[in-house]
């Protein structure tokens, strides 16, 4: 489903967008969806209007009350897998620091980010900031390799602190994708991560630091359900291209604010259709009321 590997052409085709950034503020009366639209070649479809979209909740259409094609500010939580396995397979072969620096350099003026890690210890990061030099210093000075890969625990820990952040909430994880090394003190699973991402309306993106294995199904499912995505290093170990592809996707998302129909508490399905031949839409597939 994810076609980030095809994004190099799309990147070249994407024109610069105006700097204005209307900020969506969720209320109890509206919910926000961030939709990525691609054509059959995987290129981003731009220039769409609210009328081009139809949003369904539990199978029934709902009113679109807010719409923007301009990139919304990001609350970006980056979690770096610093496990031994990644150090052996990933960091030794891919320029991870360059990729993390690229992530920082691509932040917009209204975006905020934090940097955390997981391995022997889980570090969520102190706070979301926009100071790029401070973020780079954190990358260089506060990442330490060792331990197993407590992937679900780390993602859950990061997600637990996301609700207090303003939208758009994105968790971007760099990992070799294998959950090992559950740490003492808490238990987590991919289901729990999915539930947390859903409740805090956070998109999950992954950069798989291995080119020799398929993307684990658990990761692709998490990404799809949350409206996020994934990319992986290519055979040459180019992780920066993967990062840029994800960043480009984040710049190309449409904001669609809808008024929900349901009064009942619980999970409700969401689907976004677009009136565009051969186009596909990716956005989160549910929300919790």
């Amino acid at each position, binding site marked *: 489903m994810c076609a980030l590997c095809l994004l190099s052409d799309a990147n070249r085709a994407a024109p610069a967008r105006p700097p204005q950034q209307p900020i969506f503020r969720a209320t109890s009366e509206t919910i926000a969806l961030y939709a990525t639209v691609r054509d059959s070649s995987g290129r981003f479809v731009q220039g769409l209007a609210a009328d081009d979209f139809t949003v369904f909740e539990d199978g029934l259409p709902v009113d679109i009350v807010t719409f923007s094609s301009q990139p919304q500010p990001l609350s970006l939580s980056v979690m770096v897998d*610093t496990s*031994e396995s990644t*150090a052996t397979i990933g*960091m030794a072969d891919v320029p*991870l*620091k360059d990729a993390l620096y690229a992530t920082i350099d691509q932040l917009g003026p209204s975006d905020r980010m934090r940097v*955390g*890690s997981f*391995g*022997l*210890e*889980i*570090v*969520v*990061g*102190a*706070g979301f900031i926009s100071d790029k030099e*401070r973020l780079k*210093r*954190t990358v*260089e*000075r*506060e*990442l*330490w*390799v*060792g*331990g*197993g890969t407590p992937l679900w625990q780390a993602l859950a*820990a990061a997600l637990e602190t996301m609700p207090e952040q303003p939208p758009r909430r994105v968790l971007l994880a760099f990992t070799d994708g294998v959950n090992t*090394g559950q*740490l*003492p*003190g*808490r238990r987590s699973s991919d289901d729990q991560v999915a539930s947390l991402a859903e409740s805090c309306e956070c998109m999950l993106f992954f950069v798989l630091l291995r080119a020799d294995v398929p993307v684990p199904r658990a990761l692709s499912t998490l990404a799809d359900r949350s409206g996020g995505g994934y990319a992986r290093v290519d055979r040459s170990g180019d992780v920066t291209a993967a990062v840029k592809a994800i960043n480009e996707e984040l710049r190309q998302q449409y904001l669609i604010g809808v008024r929900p129909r349901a009064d009942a508490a619980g999970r409700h399905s969401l689907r976004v259709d677009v009136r565009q031949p051969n186009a596909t839409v990716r956005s989160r597939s549910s929300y919790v009321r």
Partner: protein
Amino acid sequence: MFARCARLSLCLVASAVLLGVPVGHAQKRSDVDSLSLVIVLDASASVTEAMSTFIWDGQGDLDGVAVSGRKTPDSPMAFLRGTLRSAIVRALKANDRIAIMRAGNRDTAIALAPPGSVASQLEAALSLSESERYGSSPLWDAAYLAVSTLSGAPEPRAIVLMTDGMASGNSVDSSTLAGHAALNRVRISAVVESWQRPRSARGWRISDTTNSPWNFLRSPFGVKPSEELETLAALTQGDVVVDAGERRPGELLVEVIERTRHGVETGDVAP
């Protein structure tokens, strides 16, 4: 590193001069029986295991005392309570004021208290949840809070960090901390527990875990864990000692506290 250190030094000196604070001179006092001291313990998994992993092998000793242990998550803390308590008590004098905090507890106010409070303070500092133990090491945030706590205390003022130097999850960077410490005339020292050359205090060589998974951390980008601590110490006239696998955390803590006291007495300070 030297260039950065020199730039920061100049900046700190300039700032201090503007604020009328003398910097760069030893605080010569005759009354050094009243040290105001905060000990910051990095109680995260990496450092507590660094200090006592050899015990887990069922052999060796800690600060020269033979012990035997087993591989349980609470073993490092259990061992460290005893050795640190006796070391701190040994290093303090009756008129000293001390606070003991752990790095992960950076948001909790601390207060200086007489030496008789060491046992209870240490117990509180080392009582942490598993998620905190396997969490971040916000050394600079904790030391910043410690400087603020010391700012109103009688001089000389000092902080000693017990850590492996692998700071993480900080909201304050070490440069900001250095400026805060210099302006408040607080010396920052450290005992750095290292994973290198595992060897017991009695000279028993144990299996080298340097290249094994699980039990150690290192920088993916070649950063030396003690580097920022050494810079901080140089800028604040503190001291850094590295426990390079000898597992002498208590002895080295006493040594650093005594050096701090002696440095204040003699003016023999770091350049």
